[in-house]
């Protein structure tokens, strides 16, 4: 009988989403409509807020989406820059529109 790791607190496709977001973050595909990654700097120019608009994570709650963003950030940014991020907000297109985020 196979022995598999089981982590009920982490949705099965989360790693796939992390992989896809990190790939897009590192090498943006100009033809892709989503995910849209918005990086907001503070007055020093450090990115402290990251918003990602993406339809594909509609099934995840906001905290899980934030974890996807942070896990992807760890792949594409040096750790000191990752630790400067204090807001990681994952939204679907509808939610982003409701929040009046200019992402289109």
């Amino acid at each position, binding site marked *: 009988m196979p022995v598999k790791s089981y982590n009920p607190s982490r949705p099965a496709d989360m790693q796939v989403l992390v992989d896809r977001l990190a790939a897009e973050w590192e090498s943006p595909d100009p033809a892709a409509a989503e995910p849209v990654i918005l990086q907001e700097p503070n007055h020093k120019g450090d990115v402290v807020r990251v918003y990602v608009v993406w339809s594909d994570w509609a099934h995840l709650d906001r905290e899980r989406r934030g974890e996807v*963003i*942070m896990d992807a950030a760890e792949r594409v940014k040096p750790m000191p820059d990752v630790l400067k991020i204090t*807001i*990681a907000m994952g939204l679907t297109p509808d939610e982003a529109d409701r929040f009046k985020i200019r992402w289109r």
Partner: protein
Amino acid sequence: LLLQEFDGSVYLFGYAVEMWLKAVCLRLRGHGPTVQVKAALPPLKTWMKANAPSVPFGDYHDLSALARAVMALRQDQGRPLPLPLLTELGLRIAGGMHDGWIVDMRYRRSGLSAADAWAALLSAWWLRSHWPQLT
């Protein structure tokens, strides 16, 4: 508590403790009162993984992890908690309420006693009285 609903009492005291701890953590991270909490917690978890890797940050309702985040954030800011606060936070919350409270209490009864409920009240009351000093 007066109606002897001890399970419900402990659940609500723990929930209040969770909110105060989150408020302290987010203030220490530089956030104001209007921050989107669910967008601020994953970066805190990442920060904890880098700065306090021995603290298991399982979920965002973990009272022990949140209390230890307060300690780690204060330490990182060069303002470690004074020993009396550190001790009380550790004993009452990280090692006290954390052991007897889980968020799933809202879904099921645990058969808690009056003593459990009063102990939870005293811990929650301590945090209610001291949370501004933790920031």
